[in-house]
């Protein structure tokens, strides 16, 4: 990390402010895509599986991709956020 980066990050208030922004957005960033992934699967179940329409198979695959893709990044993110809050003694 160079001097400019150090200068940008050095103040404690700055650190607290950015973490606050992050925490504010976290539930939205984590929950919404997973919810939408389940909406895709729900749509496949209702109109594809129940009605026996194979056209909806793509919707199922996309739903699974959205959920797995998001959870894959959500877990290490939440873990690092918890660690950061602990390290910073942030309240």
């Amino acid at each position: 990390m160079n001097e400019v980066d150090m200068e940008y990050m050095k103040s404690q208030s700055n650190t607290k402010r950015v973490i606050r922004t992050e925490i504010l957005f976290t539930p939205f960033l984590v929950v919404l895509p997973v919810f939408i992934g389940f909406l895709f699967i729900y749509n496949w179940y209702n109109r594809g599986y129940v009605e026996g329409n194979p056209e909806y198979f793509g919707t199922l695959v996309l739903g699974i991709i959205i959920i797995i893709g998001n959870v894959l990044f959500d877990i290490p993110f939440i873990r690092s956020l918890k660690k950061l809050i602990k390290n910073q003694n942030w309240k």
Partner: protein
Amino acid sequence: MLKVKEKILEDTKKRIKNTKKKIGDARKKINSLEYDAHWYRRVFHAFGTSFLVYYLLPNEEWINILKFWIPPIILIIVIILEISRLKGFVSSDHFFGLRMYEKNRIGSYVFFALAILMLLRFFPQPIAVPCILCACLGDPLIGEIRYRFSIRYVYVMGFLICMLFFLISWYKADPFLMILVSIVGAFGALIGEVKKFWWIDDDFMIQILPAVLLAFIWLAILHLGFSYPSEIIFPALWPW
């Protein structure tokens, strides 16, 4: 005299030790914040997959009005926010995950939002869906591969990941067309991601470059003797 010198030396040693400790703590704090911002950027990218709900929303008049107005309104808000940040009305401190080089230039999230809006509005669904997936999931996955392994893996794995998204989105098309589109699309996405331009962000290029390449194929589909693939996402019906 000697005692005074010894005392000064001892004090200096203590000060150096304290300074080293402070530097160590600061470095630890900065590194943990950098590590966290890294995952925040990844999650922010993956969050973009939520925009695919645009195609899932029921086909009703009032929803179509919302679908027409909400994406550009989001983009306008993002642009206003970015102008405010660049002009100094809003502090950059509120923009977590912003890269250092983005502090004095347009943030990548503006390019990201602009590209998604262009795809949703101007490109057919079979082109827009895989391009959005490439930016939202392919880009962070390529970033992780670059972060953990050598650059050689980036090209191979990045190409395969993007190709998978195009294969899934075009699985209803003729097999030859599906493979052609997947190769061209994955190639475009990889070039868009790997090739960096100072004036435009890779979040824009990874979406628009493959989309433009596929638009040419799309225009030539009938001339090549194929038929247009059907959509992969259909509007949902209300449960009631």
